[in-house]
């Protein structure tokens, strides 16, 4: 079974012995969410990082697949372009979605430290047969 996202599916099968192009999703997860945090002079509001990464995950899954197909819908989608951002409203929307997702996992045991995306939700959309 191979994953559809990420430019280097081969790296899932074997570990590279030297750095090779990492998938955009993996890079973003690290450069946006990890690394040493010091207060720079220019404050960039990365939003609630959890919300941003969730948003990016949605985006990345689509961007990389869409790009392969030559689709660039996000450039015309006001919720994903920089032109029409209402961050507070978007923040609220995402919080509601997270709440809804988490409500669906109330019966599942969750691990300490994993307080992000729901751990125990059944996938509704299967992209490939298991």
């Amino acid at each position, binding site marked *: 079974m191979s994953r559809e996202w990420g430019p280097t599916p081969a790296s899932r099968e074997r570990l590279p012995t030297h750095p090779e192009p990492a998938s955009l999703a993996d890079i973003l997860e690290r450069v*946006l969410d990890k690394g*040493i945090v010091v207060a720079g002079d*220019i404050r*960039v509001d990365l939003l609630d990082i959890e919300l941003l990464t969730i948003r990016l995950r949605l985006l990345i899954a689509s961007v990389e697949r869409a790009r392969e197909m030559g689709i660039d819908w996000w450039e015309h989608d006001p919720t994903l372009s920089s032109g029409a951002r209402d961050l507070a409203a978007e923040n609220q929307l995402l919080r509601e979605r997270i709440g809804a997702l988490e409500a669906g996992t109330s019966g599942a045991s969750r691990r300490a430290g994993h307080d992000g995306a729901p751990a*125990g939700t059944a*996938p509704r959309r299967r992209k490939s047969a298991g």
Partner: protein
Amino acid sequence: MSPPAGATWVYALSGRLGQAGLDGLDGLDGLRGIGGGQVRALTSGPLTAVVESVDPGLFSAEKLQDRLTDPADLELVARRHHDVVVAVAALGAALPFRLATVYLSDERVRTLLSERCDEFCQALGWLADRTECGVKAWADAEALNRARTAQPSARNPGGRTARPGRADHSGAAYLARRRAELAARAEGQRLAARCGEEIHASLVPLAAASRLHPLHDTRATGETGLQVLNAAYLIDSASLPAFAESARTVAARAGACEVAVTGPWPAYSFADQPDA
């Protein structure tokens, strides 16, 4: 060379490097930074910050915010930042900075280096000769539950009400079936969570440190199954291949349907809080 006044983007910190060391780097030599400029070494005492002078007009808070919201720009910025961090980490221990750490002058960066010198040096010492390995695992909750209930000794939450070959259309039977379905789903999720815990518990003793990252919702990523582990492990660089093999072995033993081992990574996940 006097950098233009304005903005200094910080990529990473390392032990003292000369500019010559940076210029000679494979991959960094000629590598364009985020603003298209040359990546520089900015040294203060025992520490070097790897930085780039960027146009303050193009890297204002507002412009940056917009760039990080644009998918194409975000990818460019993230990849260039990462490429420089990788090149620095190839020289020795490096502390990656979070994306978009920008100062108004080189002097401000030097102040940071001197003010937090002890802390940064301690962190760099901790990371020396170590690398980060990412391990993600996925499980099929339904398959895990089927495998469990297939065992004769297993408790089957739906067993008492399931009567194959005899259709019972009563409301009570419907509710019983519904309860059994929900119980089976909850059990599958519990088994999937335990699968991730098992893998992690087996890998922790092999690593100098570990970090559990938020699990990805596979409905968002379009992946199959449940993500049951998303973790980073700090390991001795030399033991990376053996660690990766262990990760695959324990994931298979724990019942994961897929495992992704990535690395070597600069120590992004371990830059902030050195373990005691």
